[in-house]
């Protein structure tokens, strides 16, 4: 943690260093732009800094030293599945044949990339029990939007445009209601029951012939498996609605239970969570969209088509004997969701991870993710309230409500105190229904030792809170900056550098 410590000053903004003409030259000098274009089309100045390559390398290396990633320490951010990102996946995505391929390369010269996409789609369909997947959406929320557009079009084609309501449990990720609103649906929020689950009785009260879609996360964001899912799906289907599976928590179910078998018609997967694609500080993500058979025609374009249709024989040379093409001619499709076909480099990473695991490996991944979460839950429950004291899936929630009453120390303070101890904080204040919530997801790639160290650090923070609450409320003190004035950031927005004077 020394490189994150307070004694290193921040590098100056890149705009405040350098000197005109100092930039390292990567290309030859060009002739003046005025030789090619009339002056009124040209810019009068280009106010960017010129820094040498060494200065730029130092700048960004120093910035990296002020950034915490999985590679530096335990990252138990609930619902984010911060597992190890295997380096082999990056090496493969960076193979020139994949990296340098232009999206408009003719299909016959892009057979390798098309084979990757096809095999990943087919594999995901089997793992999650869907009829087909599209790799078009760029992230989970983007796939949610695509799925709701699929639902809207499907209902329109059936003459059921009166279906205007989307049901979203109160534990759902914020993207669910936001995606529904972007499709013009009315959002019905559904309260969870005392067991932290969707109640069949409550959902039946809001179901009707205006129900379009019910969006569910299973296990939900409390880490609890919705054990009445089959009844819920049956009830939604009975009124003609569709079931949507938010795959943010899919790391808990591989090889164990499939959304298709639970009755879901649509789903997304965050391969940047479950399939180890690095989050990269908030993206790029990758959000494959899966659908049941009756919705396949509505998937975004393009779709990869195989000739002859079938499954690549994995024991032979890659996709031997099959040809692939991008199919844009799909009259019922909702259309494209993005500029080009997919976040292809991420599809390569996901397939590489799939190869490393196989079916048994993926099953084991989910089992051990659940094992780690329960081990952590049992340890944490010795000193923090766990509002749902039962077997959880890949994550669980604890609450600092009792501790706050006793000492004034809040979930946020615990989070900041963890930063001082070299750990990333859990997700805090989400889901919204648990007061002073701390949502923890350890993932399967963490060892028992790491979990033990984390439990002890958390225990020590709680004990300190009881003895000396001010010291916890003052955290973090070892990081490069202390707590930030968020109010000032929002009231006096400073969102960019400006030339002074």
């Amino acid at each position: 943690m020394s490189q994150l410590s307070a004694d290193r000053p921040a590098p100056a903004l890149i705009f405040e260093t350098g000197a005109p003409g100092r930039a390292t030259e990567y290309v030859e000098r060009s002739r003046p732009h005025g030789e090619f274009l009339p002056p009124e089309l040209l810019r009068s100045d280009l106010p960017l800094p010129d820094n040498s390559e060494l200065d730029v390398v130092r700048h960004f290396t120093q910035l990296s030293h002020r950034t915490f990633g999985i590679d530096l320490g335990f990252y138990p951010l609930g619902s984010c599945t911060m597992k190890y990102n295997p380096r082999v996946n990056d090496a493969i995505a960076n193979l020139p044949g994949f990296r340098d391929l232009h999206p408009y390369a003719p299909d016959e010269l892009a057979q390798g990339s098309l084979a990757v996409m096809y095999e990943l789609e087919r594999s995901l369909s089997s793992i999650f029990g869907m009829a087909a997947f599209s790799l078009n959406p760029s992230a989970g929320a983007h796939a949610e939007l695509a799925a709701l557009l699929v639902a809207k079009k499907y209902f329109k084609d059936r003459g059921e445009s009166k279906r205007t309501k989307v049901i979203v449990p109160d534990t759902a990720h914020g993207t669910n209601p936001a995606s529904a609103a972007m499709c013009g649906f009315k959002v019905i929020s559904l309260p969870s029951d005392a067991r932290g689950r969707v109640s069949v009785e409550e959902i039946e009260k809001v179901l009707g012939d205006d129900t379009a879609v019910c969006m569910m996360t299973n296990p939900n964001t409390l880490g609890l498996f919705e054990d009445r899912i089959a009844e819920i799906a049956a009830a939604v289907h009975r009124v003609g609605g569709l079931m949507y599976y938010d795959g943010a928590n899919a790391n808990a179910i591989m090889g164990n239970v499939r959304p298709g078998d639970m009755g879901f018609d649509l789903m997304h997967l965050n391969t940047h969570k479950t399939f180890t694609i690095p989050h990269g500080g908030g993206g790029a993500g990758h959000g494959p969209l899966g659908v049941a058979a009756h919705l396949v025609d509505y998937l975004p374009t393009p779709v990869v088509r195989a000739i002859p249709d079938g499954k690549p024989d994995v024991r032979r040379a890659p996709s031997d004997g099959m040809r692939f093409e991008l199919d844009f001619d799909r009259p019922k499709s909702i259309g494209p969701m993005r500029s080009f076909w997919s976040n292809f480099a991420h599809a390569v990473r996901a397939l590489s991870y799939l190869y490393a695991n196989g079916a048994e490996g993926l099953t084991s991944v989910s089992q051990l993710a659940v094992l780690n979460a329960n081990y952590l839950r049992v340890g944490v429950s010795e000193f923090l309230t766990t509002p749902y004291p039962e077997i959880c899936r890949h994550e669980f929630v604890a609450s600092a409500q009792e501790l706050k009453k006793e000492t004034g120390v809040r979930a946020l303070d615990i989070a900041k105190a963890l930063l001082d101890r070299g750990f990333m904080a859990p997700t805090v204040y989400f889901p919204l229904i648990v007061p002073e919530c701390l949502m923890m997801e350890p993932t399967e790639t963490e060892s028992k030792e790491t979990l033990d160290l984390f439990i002890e650090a958390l225990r020590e923070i709680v004990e300190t809170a009881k003895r000396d609450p001010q010291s916890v409320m003052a955290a973090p003190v070892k990081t490069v900056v202390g707590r930030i004035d968020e109010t000032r950031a929002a009231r006096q927005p400073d969102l960019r550098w400006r030339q002074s004077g």
Partner: protein
Amino acid sequence: MGAYTPHTPQEISQMLERIGVGSLEELLAVSPEIAPKAPLDVVPALPEYQIERRMKALAARNRADEYASFLGAGAYRHYAPPAIAALAMRGEFLTAYTPYQAEVSQGYLQAIYEWQSYICLLTGMEIANASVYDGATALAEGSIMAINATGRARLLVSRAVDPRYRAVLHTYCGGLDIEIDEIAVGADGRTDGDSAIAAIEAKKYAAVIVQSPNFFGVIDEIDARIRAAIETSGTVPIAVISEAISLGALRPPAEWGAQIVVGEAQSFGVALAYGGPYVGFIASTAEHMRRIPGRLVGRSVDNRGGEAYTLTLQAREQHIRREKASSNICTNQAHCALIATIYLALVGASGLRDVAGLNLERSRELATAVTSVPGVSLRFEAPFFNEIVVRVGNAAEVLAGLQQRGVLAGVDLGRFYPEYADSILMAATELTTTGEIAKLTAALREVVHVAALR
């Protein structure tokens, strides 16, 4: 066992015991009615060296690198200094999440603040967000900003805007009952001013959308006449930039009236990678600040009195506002934005100016060379940046003939514009060589000649 799981069998037993459960199966028990009926049908696990071998074989089935390529049309081949990858692939950046815990994310937050600043400096706008998925989704999200700002449900889009961007706009608008009208393309390849003005005077639009350089490579500013009509009608002018390198030479969209600028920054060091991930940007005047979608990084102070960065104005976002948010976006393209920021830091003003200049130069070499072939001409006369529309006869047939001769000459415009089925969209960048242009020209001479004889 999973490929990257550290558990020993003994540890699994100890942990199960601590939890009070007999087995892993018991831990994940589900009712039989929803349990999977068959084993998963996926590849059996492979050791790492075999994964590499198999993937290398797949990568080798991509054969486009054996061709001289003039493909552009929204994705461009530019030089990316290796220092970019060396820095961006550092684990601290690569394996971080969205910087919710600002105290341990200062480095990434500063980099995104620098990205926002670069986008503002290049476009002439007041604010820029932390990125969106790509150019097409930036246009869709930017249009929603204008719809919310004006309370109008109709958009006016130039047909010279990238057809895939327009298609994505249609997809997004399908959920919201937004109408989209189009402006014709004039004979010179620019958005037709008379059609634009007639439309703006006839209906109330939320936004008028123009791309420059447009899909045909033609510099297509919103001219003074259209600007006057826009101003009178209270419409939001949106500029689309899909070739970001052009910003190194052309005057910023703020100077020709844009209030919102959306675009694609793939050209700033991001790999082609068969279409993604790329990085979209949205910038605007200050009045649209609270409508801008996605993350924003701001500079503030910490409780020790020092400067510090943080995510800000989060009251716009889905995790706070849920169905009332300005967008559903959560994950963005932070890592690609980081790559673009490093690119801009490395090349500097001098380098960006040179790259832009070389694109101007090589594309003119290309234009001169191909039009020296009998039967081949430029379709449009207006000034262009680094792409040209080349009239060849039957574009699909000519492209096939050129491909047989080792050249990927560009995109068949008939694919998007039936009226231009005689034309190919060709791009030249700083990486295009004189040899490649000569190869294309020689092949074109043969192919067009053969076609004419038939």
